[in-house]
């Protein structure tokens, strides 16, 4: 899938900003051409599933079911009409498979959005404290948060299932938002801590001399300086909550059905509503991709909990 990597050809690697006149040696040019070919092959393979999913979502049900596979077909927006507006065409052999995608989309927005807002509020204060104040036990806090990233969620999902049913949080948006904190808070605390630590402490010291309170320092110095990181972290927390499958699956039902969960309900025991399922998959992924592209720059730091900085 990938071309061999000609490291030897990179001996005269210029800094990225002065890239243009690189092809002095023919060998280097050949190596780069090979690399391009390898990368293009890789990305063709890696993006092909999306392309095929998109094409499938444009098919009528008889074209989806066709064997042998149809590469050329009469495209239709029926599947999107079904999943976006709940308008089912009579043509659809699977018209009885009805999944409320618009409603699930709203549920996902409420849960992931609400969870992100709450976690950003709680997590940023903690991240700032961890970065600024020398509590002797601060690594204990940090490790405690991290443990949730690495514990199997099911270990507390089984008891939570019983508890949620007991206290009435089962199948509620509030319940989903609260349990999602366990994904969002550790991420925000770790990533934002690394951003706050990179702010020169002198800025805070001089603000303290001017009589700034701690909350003023957080609001007026730390937050503005870490704004790009803040946006990236919020997006990643949102995506993590949006992508979560287990919580709405086990701690919720109809009222909290999220879009990831709804997509999977197109799979019946006897048949799969491929066309509508792929349309729903596209609807699930597109908003995330747009968000992710906006914060690409900080994505490595975010995904590694601040462990790797670019």
């Amino acid at each position, binding site marked *: 899938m990938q071309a061999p*990597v000609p*490291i030897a050809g990179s001996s005269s690697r210029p800094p990225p900003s002065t890239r243009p006149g690189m092809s002095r040696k023919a060998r280097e040019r050949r190596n780069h051409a090979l690399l391009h070919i390898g990368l293009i092959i890789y990305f063709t393979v890696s993006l092909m599933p999306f392309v095929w999913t998109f094409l499938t979502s444009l098919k009528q049900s008889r074209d989806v079911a066709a064997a042998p596979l149809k590469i050329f077909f009469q495209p239709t927006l029926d599947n999107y009409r079904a999943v976006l507006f709940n308008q089912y065409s009579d043509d659809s052999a699977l018209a009885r498979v009805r999944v409320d995608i618009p409603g699930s989309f709203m549920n996902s927005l409420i849960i992931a959005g609400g969870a992100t807002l709450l976690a950003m509020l709680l997590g940023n*204060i903690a991240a700032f404290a961890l970065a600024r*104040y020398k509590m002797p036990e601060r690594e204990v806090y940090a490790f405690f948060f991290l443990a949730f990233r*690495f514990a199997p969620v099911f270990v507390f999902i089984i008891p939570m299932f019983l508890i949620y049913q007991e206290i009435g949080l089962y199948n509620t948006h509030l319940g989903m938002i609260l349990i999602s904190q366990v994904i969002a808070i550790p991420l925000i605390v770790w990533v934002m801590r690394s951003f706050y630590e990179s702010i020169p402490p002198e800025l805070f010291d001089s603000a303290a*001399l001017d009589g700034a309170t701690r909350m003023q320092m957080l609001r007026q110095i730390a937050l503005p300086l870490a704004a790009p990181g803040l946006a990236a972290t919020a997006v990643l927390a949102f995506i993590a909550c949006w992508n979560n499958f287990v919580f709405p699956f086990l701690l919720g039902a109809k009222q909290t059905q999220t879009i990831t969960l709804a997509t999977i309900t197109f*799979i019946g025991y006897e048949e799969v509503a491929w066309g509508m399922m792929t349309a729903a998959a596209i609807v699930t992924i597109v908003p995330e991709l747009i968000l992710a592209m906006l914060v690409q720059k900080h994505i490595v730091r975010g995904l590694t909990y601040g462990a790797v900085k670019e």
Partner: protein
Amino acid sequence: MAILAPPVRRQRAMNKGKVERDALETADIRAGRLMMIPALIIPVLLAIVFFFGFYLTLRNRRLNRGDLGFVGLENYARLLQDDKFWHSLSLTLKFTLTDVGLELSLATLMALALSQPLRGIRIYRALLIIPLMTPPVVGALVWKVLYRSGNGGFFNYFLWEAGLPMQGFIGDPSQAIFSLVAIDVWLYLPFVAIILLAGLQTLPQEQIDAAHVDGANGWQLFWQIQLPYMIPFYIVALFFRVIDSLNIFDTIYGTTKGGPGDATRVLAVNGFETAFPFFNLSYGGAIFVALWLLCTVAGSLLFIWVKRSQAT
């Protein structure tokens, strides 16, 4: 708010001697602790729930029949004799080793390729993160479309056109687990690649230049300079990928649900099925305690490795 020291007192403290600066530091520490509390509430409650979950495995709690009393370690004793459990454990390890091994090696190639000064490198990097943002369940569904059986399926259509035998992929017990590894590699190779790429980019250019002056070829450069330098980045990637692969659930639930037969019934799927579809919350919980132990052992080993690599 209580955590805010009055500005006047701070000002005085900054101007005066060491005693007051110490007092200020104590105030900072107290304020820092108070600021931790809001974020800690839910995680602390969940930590308590974790112990409640462990207690639940010492009872016989059924989803359909309620609590049937205290059974001590019976669920764990049963675990040791349960062939299905051992099967899912070895399957989980097999999945994790294949998955992480492939991801690390392919991602190394990808990172080395993307560290070259290529034209259009930014486009490649943007494309790289696309699978990474996909919900695992949806990614699994996307692949389910590709894996469809018969010549109406994407892969099988091309095999059929080429005159090759069609494959079962996720429907074939001997191929299913590797078909799932393929999905997971597709989802997470970019994650490992961007970590390693970030590592490669922090390697000082002088070190690479010096190696070239010494006449090192690309192979030597990689093994003797780049790889040792990147060890910490590999460990970060391993931390995330090993633990997440041990916990693999979403992609399997979206495709095979553990089947065909038991061919993809990894620990998380096994535990989930025992606890919910089969109503045995306590025994399912015991399986998850075992999974938790496995993750803890793996995490600790990696942690020891970090400490060792820092020491040398």
